[in-house]
């Protein structure tokens, strides 16, 4: 057993899980509170990366890029909520799917118009570009940073949701929207803030990954599906559920890609195992989701009082 590889893969899984959490936490709140399916949530992920990349190219500072990018994505999210999403909450889900599918096309093309068809690389400062070694283990600094940043945002979000008035309203809204409205809360403003915050978190995920993969058109369209899987597995509306589910799915996806073939070789001839493993590992998270929906449709960590 190669322990170095195992640790690296665990770190990669953790990293993917935390990125998924940044995407899924906003998605699950928008889903749970507004009952709104936002397929275009992945566009915020892409826009975040492009905003950040542009500012980094101008200013040369990665931190500035992230801060300006966050503000930018928050603004775009607020705009989308105010102009479009708000008019759709009371319509049916088919309308949500159509409009947000349209938004994906719009955002992808706008990025194409503004930044061109080729991707955008985001250079990292030298401090982050190196490697840290722990005993025999060598780990890239930047990947560690993603993990630390992801955990930090998760912690902030937990405090925000469990300790503040905004969080109280969010939780109340997720359990019983009508009651919150009846109590005289300005529901429009609450929705706006939740939507824009969700967008900003998705944007942050995009900014964090872009230095590794570079920013590209449609980069959010695949990962958003996995984020939806996270939302369903964790339980719609549940931030805690999204956190655990994101880590579980991040780890399953990463580890199965590198270890499933060996596992299958225990049960079948190695040439079959080598063919079956990639297909099976790609399907694994969807099988998990199907199993959750079939046996525990409310998700693994549902919030109390959710209908």
């Amino acid at each position, binding site marked *: 057993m190669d322990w170095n590889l195992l640790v690296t893969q665990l770190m990669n899984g953790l990293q993917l899980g935390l990125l998924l959490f940044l995407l899924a936490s906003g998605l699950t709140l928008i889903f749970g509170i507004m009952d709104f399916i936002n397929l275009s949530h992945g566009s915020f992920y892409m826009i975040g990366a492009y905003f950040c990349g542009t500012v980094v190219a101008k200013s040369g500072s990665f931190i500035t890029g992230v801060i300006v990018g966050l503000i930018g994505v928050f603004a775009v999210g607020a705009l989308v909520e105010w102009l479009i999403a708000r008019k759709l909450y009371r*319509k049916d889900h088919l309308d949500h799917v159509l409009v947000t599918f*349209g*938004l994906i*096309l719009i955002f992808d093309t706008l990025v194409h118009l503004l930044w061109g068809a080729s991707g955008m690389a985001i250079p990292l400062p030298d401090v982050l570009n190196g490697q840290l070694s722990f005993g025999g283990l060598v780990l890239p600094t930047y990947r560690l940073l993603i993990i630390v940043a992801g955990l930090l945002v998760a912690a902030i979000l937990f405090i925000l949701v469990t300790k503040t008035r905004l969080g109280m309203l969010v939780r109340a809204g997720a359990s019983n929207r009508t009651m919150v409205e009846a109590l005289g809360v300005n529901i429009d403003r609450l929705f706006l803030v939740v939507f824009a915050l969700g967008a900003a978190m998705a944007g942050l995920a995009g900014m964090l990954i872009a230095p590794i993969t570079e920013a590209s058109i449609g980069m959010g369209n695949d990962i958003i599906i996995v984020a939806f899987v996270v939302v369903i597995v964790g339980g719609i509306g549940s931030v805690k559920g999204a956190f655990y589910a994101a880590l579980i799915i991040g780890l399953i996806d990463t580890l199965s890609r590198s270890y499933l073939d060996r596992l299958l070789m225990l049960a079948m001839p190695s040439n079959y195992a080598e063919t079956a493993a990639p*297909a099976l590992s790609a399907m694994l998270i969807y099988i998990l989701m199907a199993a959750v929906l*079939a046996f525990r449709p409310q998700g693994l960590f549902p919030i109390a009082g959710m209908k």
Partner: protein
Amino acid sequence: MFRLPANLSGRSYALLLVILALAPFILEWANQPFYLDLLSRALILGIAAISLNLILGFGGMISLGHAAYIGIGAYCVGIPSYYEYYNGWLHLALALSVSAIFALITGAISLRTKGVYFIMITMAFSQMVFFTFLSMEEYGADDGLVIYSRSEFPEWLSMDSGVSLYYWVFAMLLLSLMFTHRLVHARFGRVIVGSRFNEQRMQALGFNTYRYRLTCYVISAMMCSVAGMLFGNFAGFISPDIMGWARSGELIFMVIIGGVATFFGPLVGTIVFVMLEEFLSAITVYWHLIFGVMLVALVLFGKGGIHGWLSSWDRKGADHG
């Protein structure tokens, strides 16, 4: 109020079918073979849209994974051809049976859920199929698979030329239109439409709505796999890209442009979609922007798609309830 759409013989739609039937001759005369290709593609996607409309429009089951069945149908041509089995009946039988089995299994799980969950689980299953084909190196993975020769049928049914393939597609299209019409007007269809509006009432009337919906889901999937089988033959090159979730989104879009829960709506929607795609993409590389804006506008301001506009012209001045 919902009412079953007017019967099959609406005058404008009859005219459309006549034009489609004569299209190869018209295009031959106009010396525009390219448009026959375009029209074939539109009609193939039209069959897929009609099949989606059966569950989405009439049954109220919003599937965001229907393109998976196009993929299954197409690979049921591609994979046997890869092993040099060219028999068309084999391809057709494979497409129908593989899609039926897959739809039966996934439908049985999916239909236990409702609303958002159904949308998500259908999408998840289609992603599963997508990634399965994506990881099969033997069959080209994401590079795709070339189908060197079309499915072989007896001489009089051959689909080797562009025109004969077009008539294959047209015949299948007519078949699916008539089949949908028969189905929706039969007792079966009444139960499907009824359980879309009030499932409890249908259950109270003694119908096992789950079984009806599952049957409907399987039928729709099989119909869609025929579109996939035709697509494999038409394109001669298939890749997992044809069943990505964006494709499923486009299928919904086609149904909606034309008008949900109407017989001809999906067909008209698909033709409009394919033509728009063709002409807009010739004008600008940014044509997706126009599509996106159209989609948003259609939902925010549109009513009932093209079919809705047509019938509101028809009904102008008349009583509409």
